[in-house]
């Protein structure tokens, strides 16, 4: 019983850890990291379904024995790129939220939203983040 399913239980554990991080953590960037862990767990599950014992990669070569199934690998190639696309959108939002609210912690966000409900629209950057790439332009609005 255990011999056949240990992989699936390990992967289910990874998925659940990711889900736990997404829901419990307050920091927006940490949530996205948890989301990545959750998605990777699912991808590994798909690929382990397509694996045959003693098989080899589905690249046809003479006498290369049984091949693992190519279909789950195609699906996961698509899913990985979808995951990164969602991560990029989430991170862009996190940067903009930091510039508008001054923080990326959920509880502080609620406090800031209650204290100053009506600053000027979403485009005003309250504070100037540091320049991570060693370049400085004339004093940004601080």
């Amino acid at each position: 019983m255990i011999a056949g399913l240990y992989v699936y239980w390990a992967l289910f554990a990874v998925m659940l850890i990711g889900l736990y991080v997404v829901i419990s953590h307050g920091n927006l960037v940490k949530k996205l990291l948890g989301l990545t862990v959750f998605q990777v767990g699912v991808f590994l599950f798909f690929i382990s379904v397509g694996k045959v014992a003693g098989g080899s990669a589905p690249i046809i070569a003479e006498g290369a024995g049984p091949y693992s199934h190519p279909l789950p690998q195609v699906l996961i190639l698509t899913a990985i790129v979808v995951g990164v696309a969602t991560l990029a959108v989430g991170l862009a939002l996190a940067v903009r939220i930091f510039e508008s609210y001054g923080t990326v912690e959920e509880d502080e966000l609620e406090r800031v939203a209650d204290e100053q409900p009506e600053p000027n629209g979403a485009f005003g950057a309250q504070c100037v983040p540091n320049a991570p790439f060693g370049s400085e332009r004339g004093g940004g609005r601080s």
Partner: protein
Amino acid sequence: MISAVMVALLVTMVLALLRAFLGPDRYNRILAINMFGTKTVLFVAVAGFLFGRPDFLDIGILYALVNFVATIAVLRLSHYEELVSGRSGGAGE
């Protein structure tokens, strides 16, 4: 013999992982992860030979490249933050 090397690599990876978890400050962790990356490159190469399909070594090249880019990125971005906050005395010692 190759499976012995595989076992050695796995043990080294676990040791590096322990240092990554224990590492008191950031630099110990970067070092452990960089070492883990190099061992993964070797793991892929040895796994290719062990399981009979040695012609998939492009992945090894990619691992080495990506490991190098990640290490430079970690140093470049985290290091820079210290420079800005001026804690390390700016331009030089």
